[in-house]
């Protein structure tokens, strides 16, 4: 199983999304979407999928998969760990 650092994923959010809260306030299980969480929208979801593909070489192929995978940084980390071809994260 690949090692995925949650801080790499947090950095990915910072670089690709218009965050309304500070990165260090984002908990591993905090919902990424909706008013009770990080507050991302569907445009952010598209940008995250592109960023994940570029950083890890793993495509999130469709919106239905994205809805499952992008519930929180924790679900994204766990999904990335399960992907067989996930290379080590690029710095």
């Amino acid at each position: 199983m690949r090692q995925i650092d949650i801080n790499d994923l947090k950095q990915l959010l910072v670089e690709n999304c218009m965050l309304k809260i500070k990165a260090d306030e984002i908990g591993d299980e905090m919902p990424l979407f909706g008013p009770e969480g990080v507050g991302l929208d569907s445009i952010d979801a598209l940008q995250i999928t592109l960023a994940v593909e570029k950083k890890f070489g793993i495509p999130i192929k469709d919106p239905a998969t994205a809805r499952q995978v992008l519930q929180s940084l924790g679900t994204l980390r766990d999904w990335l760990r399960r992907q067989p071809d996930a290379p080590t994260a690029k710095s």
Partner: protein
Amino acid sequence: MKQRLTPHGPGFSFIDSIEIVESGHLLRASKWLDPKSPFFGDHFPGNPMMPGVLLVECAAQAAGALWGSIQKQSKPKAFMLAKVQDFRFKQPVLPGQTLTIEVTLEKDFGALAQFNIELSVAGKPVAGGSVILSSSQATSP
């Protein structure tokens, strides 16, 4: 009657021709910039040049043409502009010049799609960046 290439009226259509270079992926469009276009009179008086926001509009319209072709739309479809990012303007674009607009699909993602666009004049890059279009009236569905 000339075939419409965009869903816009003639006063706001910024594409004269399109060519699908690579099906589902790459489209090339062109636009001759008529010196009589009203915006050249005021942008700027005595020093006319194409407004940057209209270069972005050219890019968005070409991206819409590509997405419409991917969706096999029978007529031009009105997509909504959801995001403009990383646009750079490298050279002034002048009346009488012909813009070439090359659009590449970066990601088709349900109701949203992201495109990379390069605009050039006579082979020289003048502007470029990315846009996200939405097929929904809500731009962040």
